[in-house]
């Protein structure tokens, strides 16, 4: 993100904490807007339903989320550097949560998703009742 350099410059100037906070809030807003655009694009692509292009389109879309996640991490790092935690910058809490959710989503790779689909198609699945029963047994121990 080009604006990182601007933030770093403002932050390094003495007595400019307020200005740095303003720039940080803008970075946060920009990151959230970027995510909305990616999600919009993602939804549009899914609605097109072109099965042959699915894998390629999904890989490209995941790439967009990955790039966004890296940039959001850069923004959050800078917000934290301001010293008061993310709560003091407008929207930073929201960005923090969106970043966590995106990381969770990205932790399923495309190959994992395809493998899971194959498992589902071949009925290599476990009913939720069985999973819950196992969990209860573990909790009792």
């Amino acid at each position: 993100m080009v604006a990182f350099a601007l933030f770093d410059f403002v932050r390094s100037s003495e007595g400019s904490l307020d200005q740095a906070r303003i720039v940080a809030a803008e970075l946060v807003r920009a990151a959230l807007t970027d995510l909305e655009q990616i999600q919009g694009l993602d939804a549009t692509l899914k609605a097109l339903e072109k099965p042959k292009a699915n894998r390629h389109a999904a890989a490209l879309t995941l790439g967009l989320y990955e790039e966004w996640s890296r940039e959001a991490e850069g923004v959050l790092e800078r917000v934290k550097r301001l010293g008061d935690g993310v709560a003091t910058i407008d929207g930073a809490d929201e960005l923090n949560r969106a970043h966590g959710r995106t990381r969770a989503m990205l932790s399923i790779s495309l190959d994992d998703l395809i493998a899971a689909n194959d498992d589902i198609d071949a009925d290599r699945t476990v009913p939720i009742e069985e999973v819950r029963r196992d969990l209860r047994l573990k909790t009792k121990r």
Partner: protein
Amino acid sequence: MIYALKLSDSAIAGLQSLPLWLQDETLDQIDTLTMGVKRPRKPDIRPLAHDFTREHDQETHYIFIRYRISTPPRQSTFELSVAT
């Protein structure tokens, strides 16, 4: 509409990576996910997604669930990922 809820192997692995209290809450979330969902008119292989967060001992857990709803035999299958 009542669905048969099934978890894929990787969803189970994701679930088991969670603390026990959160595994229970995640299963509750999965249980409620398909409530009120109408059966698709044609087979639909597009995955749907749901996420939620839980804070515990100053740690935030992000749970991301992908799921698929099938036409007869009316089952819903889940894929789960976790970030802490």
